[in-house]
């Protein structure tokens, strides 16, 4: 992955020891979404607009409310949402489910970060050359050990 791509998107994936149908329920039923993501009136229907209500995060310039529209739905395979947290435009969040063994690998793509965003530019300037991705892991490790 190039640094330019790093700055435009976040890719995270996680193996879940549960079948895709169950993971799909956790991703689409508000009573479950509520517990791991945020309370919101999500429905798995293209064109449905809704909000998630979260806790404001100052470091992320996140106001606490996320305005979303369902852009794509493929049952038990994919959900793509527009994701507007009030500070930036043009973000999308996509969850992709792939069966893996007896479980599911869930891929999350958070895309649409603007490489010209002043914060991204500063970040690139001081953290250039892969510093960010390489060292974030090391920082996490040290912080975990520090307790």
């Amino acid at each position, binding site marked *: 992955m190039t640094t330019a791509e790093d700055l435009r998107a976040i890719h995270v994936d996680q193996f879940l020891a549960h079948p895709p149908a169950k993971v799909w329920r956790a991703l689409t039923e508000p009573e479950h979404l509520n517990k791991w993501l945020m309370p919101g009136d999500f429905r798995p229907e293209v064109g449905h607009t809704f909000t998630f209500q979260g806790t404001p*995060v100052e470091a*992320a310039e996140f106001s606490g409310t996320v305005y979303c529209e369902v852009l794509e739905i493929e049952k038990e395979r994919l959900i793509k949402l527009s994701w507007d947290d009030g500070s930036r435009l043009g973000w999308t969040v996509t969850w992709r489910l792939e069966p893996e063994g007896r479980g599911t690998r869930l891929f999350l793509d958070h895309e649409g970060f603007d490489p010209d965003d002043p914060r991204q530019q500063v970040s690139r300037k001081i953290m250039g050359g892969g510093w960010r991705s390489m060292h974030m892991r090391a920082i996490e490790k*040290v912080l975990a050990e520090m307790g």
Partner: protein
Amino acid sequence: MREDVFAALASPVRRQLLHLLLDGGSQPVGRLAERFDMARPSVSEHLKVLKDAGLVAESRHGRERHYRLEAAPLMEIRDWLTPYERFWRERLADLGTVLDDMEDRDDDNR
């Protein structure tokens, strides 16, 4: 984030020093200086900038000064650079817990 933290991170030498401390934990100046092609006082100067920015702390062990990382500004850097990455990692970890607690349905395993 504080201006002096940015300034401290702007230097490749200081980023390398942080890297060495991340990898090797608390270390004497001498061991850190061996890794650089520059005089030890210059390395000490860089460590002082990191210390003034609060990124490292120093302690005396006999005649030697040891340097170690400080957690708070590291957390600040991490949260500032990748707030959303961290957010999603934590959410996906929570999703795993929610799934473990959810009852299985017959038609989940088709």
